[in-house]
């Protein structure tokens, strides 16, 4: 697979990562955080919703421990991606650590859906992951810099995060064999939004969801 073909493959991700990265950068500059932190966050964390969440928690002055727990719980879904990549990465060199680090939702989707000859696989996987991260880094740095320069009214741009979550909820609902967890989460989310203190809402709701999911496993799996 030529380099150009690999780039072509990642275009849909580029179209998502650059504007979303820019939204992240803009939001970061709105919190009056210097632009180079956008660069560091995108290089070292490289998690779309995780970085947005970090900003939200910065704004509400969450403790570093809370940021760690919330990020861990939010990104726990990546554990599932890793699970289905164990055999795929098995015989790779040290580069597989970068692949594991860069296993975002979109990268996972590309790696899972691309047909690659075995001899080429490691090289192509690394390029896909690296290109995706480049788009994300470029988007977030440009957004953070323009946020301070352009006299553009971006009030409300943070709604892209809400919309992203709505879209991913629908995607996961369609993909999931069981449909009850979706409806249970709707109730828990609504309940949590109304009744839990805003700063603890996410952690409490996620713990409650995990609890219900495990304790009521049998009834979740009954029917559909």
């Amino acid at each position: 697979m030529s380099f150009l073909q690999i780039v072509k493959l990642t275009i849909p991700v580029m179209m998502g990562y650059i504007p979303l990265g820019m939204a992240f950068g803009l939001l970061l500059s709105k919190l009056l955080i210097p632009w180079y932190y956008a660069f560091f966050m995108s290089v070292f964390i490289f998690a779309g919703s995780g970085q947005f969440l970090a900003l939200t928690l910065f704004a509400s002055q969450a403790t570093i421990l809370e940021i760690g727990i919330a990020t861990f719980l939010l990104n726990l879904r990546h554990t599932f991606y890793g699970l289905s990549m164990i055999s795929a990465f098995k015989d790779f060199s040290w580069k597989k650590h970068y692949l594991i680090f860069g296993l975002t939702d979109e990268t996972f989707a590309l790696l899972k859906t691309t047909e690659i000859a075995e001899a080429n696989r490691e090289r192509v996987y690394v390029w896909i992951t690296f290109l995706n991260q480049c788009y994300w880094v470029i988007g977030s740095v440009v957004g953070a810099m323009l946020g301070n320069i352009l006299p553009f009214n971006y009030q409300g741009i943070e709604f892209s995060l809400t919309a992203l979550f709505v879209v991913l909820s629908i995607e996961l609902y369609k993909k999931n064999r069981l449909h009850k967890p979706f409806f249970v989460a709707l109730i828990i989310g609504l309940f949590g939004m109304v009744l839990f203190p805003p700063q603890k809402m996410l952690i409490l709701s996620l713990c409650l969801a995990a609890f219900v999911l495990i304790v009521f496993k049998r009834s979740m799996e009954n029917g559909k």
Partner: protein
Amino acid sequence: MESSYIIGSIIVAMLATYATRIIPFLLFRNREPSALIKYIELNMPVMIMVILVFYALKDVKWESYPYGMAEIIGVGVAIFLHVRFQNALLSIFVATLAYMVLVQNVF
């Protein structure tokens, strides 16, 4: 915001994110994951996503004007477009644009 707070948070967020991605490789290097773990990993993501929608809406003032109408319309646009066209980018951008127009010009 202090830079030590931001740098500390970045390091913690980095470790937390990497942990979620490396865990399965460490745990299940030589054995198959249990049925319960598989069940949680299959069903937890959709619950997380739905709860995140409500988390993103947690600061909306529902009891006073405009009663969260911009949020309700924005979410409605995202749902409608995504069910109709199944194009994530389109749904996210149009919904965000609609929301921005509403909060800047209408409410």
